[in-house]
């Protein structure tokens, strides 16, 4: 029973990403969308470290259109994080048994 977890708020302001990562299990996927994508920017930040620590237990994904809107180039994301479009979001939702939104 694998899960796609979605997180949509900035991990610099809210606790939802931390809580998501603390509950995701091996084989799960975590997808950052909307304001949460700011957490995917590579660099020596607390959030980048948390994402690295979560892989490879989970796969981490980020929504490309949201990245672009925040001025983050697709090649400037934390290593190992995959960039997907809305179709990729649909695929992630389809290939995992269920999805859980961390609102």
């Amino acid at each position, binding site marked *: 029973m694998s899960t796609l977890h*979605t997180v*949509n708020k900035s991990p610099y302001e809210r606790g939802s990403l931390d809580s998501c990562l603390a509950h995701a299990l091996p084989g799960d996927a975590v997808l950052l*969308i*909307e*304001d949460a994508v700011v957490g995917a920017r590579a660099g020596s930040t607390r959030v980048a470290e948390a994402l690295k620590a979560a892989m490879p237990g989970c796969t981490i994904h980020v929504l490309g*259109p949201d990245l672009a809107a925040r001025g983050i180039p697709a090649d400037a994301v934390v290593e190992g994080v995959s960039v997907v*479009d*809305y*179709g990729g*979001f*649909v*695929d992630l*939702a*389809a290939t995992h048994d*269920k*999805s859980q*939104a961390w*609102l």
Partner: protein
Amino acid sequence: MKFAVVVNEGPYTHQASDTAYQFTKAALEKGHEIYRVFFYHDGVNNATRLTVPPQDERNVQKNWSELAEKNALDMVVCIAAAQRRGILDEGEAKRHGKGEGSANIAPGFRISGLGQLIEAGIQADRLVVFGD
């Protein structure tokens, strides 16, 4: 695959409705079925026909209405949440004495009960929630 989509926030203030719209569109393009789009909490505000966004901005309500028409989407607005926020169809407007012409629900949306959300969870293969 059969998807159900839940939208918990209104237009413009939060991106949730935009993301849900893009997700729904992409799912349809991939040949999936959208069993239902359910609007709850402030999500019911997506269904007002009275918005007049600036001409150079997207029209969230129109986006949904047009997507629904093209794909025969079932878009359900929760009645309890809609009453709290002032979204009414003809029947509701009359029942609550709001006066001729007051109904403000946009084309493609219908008002119904929360049971429609649960039923969507039961019938769909996947349920995806968008919110604040």
